[in-house]
């Protein structure tokens, strides 16, 4: 038989007692009695009695600690809670007519079969006078517990996070729901954080030992999760109205729309925002909500945006919300929008993007065949200009055909080099943001979308459709992110993102080992050629020939410079070999019509003419 643990933990400013004491001190200044329920040895008592006007009173069921308190001259009482009316009377007798200042219940609730009943009792005691309650409970979601449990280990110990006498295991959501249910409102927190808890054993476990790739990966995945390092929640509450809602999670999840569409606007492109709403009203699948995030809108623009929403027809109109954001960078509205989103998936549709009628439907189809992944369709790029005819309002004018710049499949390794996926062609699983805490990096002024999508892709892989479902508008002459940021800024952000990739352990999809092996063999042996999966067609050879042509090679510097400005990536032979025949043909047409190619043809002709020997 294991000897019962003696809960005589010393006070220290950095431990649960120190943190609780700080909250007890800060929550009220009135003179009165502070009742510490489940006080044990009351090692916090001496510190609390230094607070002006505070008289400490400890209550516990066990005599062990109470003896020590009495010997130290601290007031305490023995009582076993469990009968509501008797418990109320007991507390009243213990107060003996004195004013109640505050209460605490530290590392006690987790030992109770029905902690909600205790919380309700304490609520009724404090409700009339509005006295604060300070609560501490251990956090069962500390990463050390989770890392071990992921590999089948759950170690009870005499004391600590998995104390053998714990019967209720608290996470923050449970603590929040339970306290709200009985009527407590949280007003402050002072949690105890520990990067290594008492559960970090055995030291050689690969999920626990520093330096192992597994721990590195798990630590990184938990980096943005709230409370991964919280050892104990230490919170202050005041009486409020009970919600009486169940604090248990239902296995039946609330109905969510399939997709949340997040549209940022600064109110500068109202004409195209109107078109976005029109396109959304024409979707073949209407299982989505729309969040228009108005960034730094002045009163007039806010009114105009609201008017646009009002003008749109039902049933779209009732599914559109305007959320105002008056701070932060251009990336901040994305984080706000994602945070507000209720959909199973979340997409970004900027206020000048063009979704086809099946944009939502195609994401839905992908989600059914490949649940849990980031969803990707294909966007085409089309060049536009602003226009205003004599008798019309400001509008847009298409200036080019559809540029098939982006491949029809997501390739993680290629995406490490460059972003081949406009935002509009993606739907992110909400879990990446809401459960894993992934956020858009607001310190990046450009290409923040690439940074975010890669971090999501590393976790949940990507399902691709070859359907073209959206148009990415490329503005020829008016302002855009391409023109508003200097080349040096693009380059800086690019380098920062590449650095971030290098700081992480990456999860690669199946098949990556073979591809990396081919790449390494090609890198070390230039004559190496892996067996082609499909035979090449005439279009492939024509395109390869064109890439080898003097005209194309002549304009390489122009295309490299263009790449830093976010222009599509240059082509390499390997990309051509892996293209479908249709894609090769389309790319060949685009190359032939490209400005750099036309320029090159003129230059080559001029060079030839000027090189002719005089007669």
């Amino acid at each position: 038989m294991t000897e019962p643990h003696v809960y005589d933990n010393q006070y220290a400013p950095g431990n649960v007692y120190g943190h609780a004491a700080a909250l007890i001190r800060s929550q009220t200044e009135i003179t009165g009695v502070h009742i510490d329920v489940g006080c044990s040895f009351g090692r916090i008592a001496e510190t609390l009695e230094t607070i002006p006007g505070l008289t400490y009173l400890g209550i516990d069921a066990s005599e062990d600690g109470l003896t020590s308190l009495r010997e130290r001259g601290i007031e305490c009482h023995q009582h076993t809670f469990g009968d509501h009316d008797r418990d109320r009377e007991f507390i009243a007798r213990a107060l003996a007519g004195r004013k109640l200042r505050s209460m605490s219940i530290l590392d006690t609730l987790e030992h109770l079969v029905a902690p909600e009943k205790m919380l309700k009792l304490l609520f009724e005691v404090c409700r009339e006078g509005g006295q604060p309650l300070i609560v501490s409970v251990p956090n069962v979601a500390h990463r050390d517990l989770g890392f071990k449990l992921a590999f089948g280990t759950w170690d009870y110990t005499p004391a600590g996070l998995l104390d053998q006498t714990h019967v209720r295991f608290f996470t923050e959501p449970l603590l929040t729901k339970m306290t709200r249910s009985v009527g407590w409102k949280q007003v402050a927190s002072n949690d105890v954080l520990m990067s290594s808890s008492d559960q970090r054993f055995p030291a050689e476990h690969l999920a626990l030992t520093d330096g192992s790739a597994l721990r590195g990966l798990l630590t990184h995945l938990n980096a943005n999760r709230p409370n991964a390092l919280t050892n104990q929640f230490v919170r202050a509450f005041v009486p409020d109205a009970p919600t009486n809602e169940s604090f248990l999670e239902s296995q039946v999840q609330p109905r969510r729309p399939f997709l949340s569409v997040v549209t940022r606007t600064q109110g500068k492109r109202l004409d195209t925002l109107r078109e976005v709403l029109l396109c959304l009203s024409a979707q073949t699948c209407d299982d989505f909500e729309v969040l228009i995030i108005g960034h730094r809108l002045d009163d007039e623009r806010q009114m105009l945006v609201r008017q646009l929403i009002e003008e749109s027809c039902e049933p779209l109109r009732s599914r559109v919300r305007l959320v105002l954001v008056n701070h932060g960078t251009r990336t901040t509205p994305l984080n706000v929008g994602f945070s507000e989103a209720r959909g199973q998936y979340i997409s970004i549709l900027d206020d000048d993007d063009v979704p086809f009628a099946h944009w939502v439907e195609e994401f839905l189809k992908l989600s059914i065949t490949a649940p849990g992944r980031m969803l990707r369709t294909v966007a085409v790029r089309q060049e536009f200009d602003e226009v205003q005819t004599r008798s019309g309002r400001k509008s847009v004018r298409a200036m080019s055909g559809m540029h098939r710049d982006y491949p029809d499949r997501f390739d993680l390794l290629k995406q490490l080099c460059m972003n081949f996926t406009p935002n509009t062609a993606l739907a992110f699983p909400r879990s990446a943001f809401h459960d894993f805490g992934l956020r858009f990096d607001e310190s990046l002024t450009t290409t923040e979308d690439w940074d975010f999508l890669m971090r999501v892709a590393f976790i949940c892989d990507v399902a691709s459709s070859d359907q073209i479902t959206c148009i990415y508008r490329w503005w020829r002459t008016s302002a855009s992110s391409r023109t508003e940021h200097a080349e040096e800024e693009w380059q800086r952000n690019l380098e920062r993102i590449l650095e971030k990739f290098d700081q992480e352990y990456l999860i690669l999809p199946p098949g990556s080992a073979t591809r990396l092996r081919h790449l390494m063999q090609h890198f070390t042996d230039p004559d190496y050629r892996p067996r082609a999966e499909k035979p090449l067609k005439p279009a492939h050879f024509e395109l390869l020939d064109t890439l080898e042509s003097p005209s194309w090679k002549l304009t390489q510097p122009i295309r490299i410079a263009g790449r830093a400005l976010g222009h599509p990536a240059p082509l390499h032979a390997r990309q051509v070999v892996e293209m479908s025949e249709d894609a090769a043909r389309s790319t060949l047409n685009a190359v032939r019509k490209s400005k750099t190619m036309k320029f090159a043809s003129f230059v080559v002709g001029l060079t030839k003419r000027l090189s002719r020997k005089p007669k």
Partner: protein
Amino acid sequence: MTHLWRAVDGARSRDLISTVEVVLGDGSKKPVFDSAALQKLQSDYASAFEIKYQYFGQNLGTAKGHNTMFASCDSDFVVVMNPDVMMAPDCLIELFRPFRSENTGIVEARQMPIEHPKEYDRTTGETSWASTACCLIPSKLWRQIGGFDDATFFLYCDDVDFSWRARLTGYKVVFQPSAVVFHDKRLSPAAHWQTSSAEEYFSAEAALLLAHKYSRPDLVEAISRDFGAAEAPHFKKALTAFKTRKRKGKLCTPIDPEHLVGEFVQGEYANHRFRL
């Protein structure tokens, strides 16, 4: 209908229109609406417009279909539009604006997501022809030029012909980029315009007929040569149909001998800003 309702509401609020009637022309083998469904539709939108339904019992083609429906109209202006086109809330307002100019004949809306590539003047909006995917036409003009040429054209190019005849009469055809409609068209995975077999055949047929009507025997000969040599069967079928009409004396009398309005540019009927 909901989109049309919002657009009508918007135009009415600006006093641009008063009464509105919607004529639905049904050329399918079986009626799309039974009487109960039609009554419900009419009742749902009664506050916005009157809905008339004409069941043709056969596919009349666009030219004859438009003429048949127009015959029952008694309005000052007519919007010709495809049933799958959805108007932006301010579309009608923007369609009416060019009519402040007296010689405006037809105003065409800009289609989304795939914009028609034909060129138009950035200041005046003037263009070669207007697509009946969605355009606004004064009834007076329609009657003046005798409506669509349903004896010549079945599907495709009837709108090109209508526009050119309006221009021959002295009217302007205007493309209004701010009048926006959504027309559900999609691209192939290779980003190409997707044509149906009907579009392929009737466009081919119409190309020959249009070249003939607008006094371009040189083009008729060139197109005939190409169609005759083409592998795809619809080209030969179109050529055969044209030759049969010619043999039976059923081709229309050519017009525009001075080529004032007819534009035949790289297989299109206007200069294009880009290719799809």
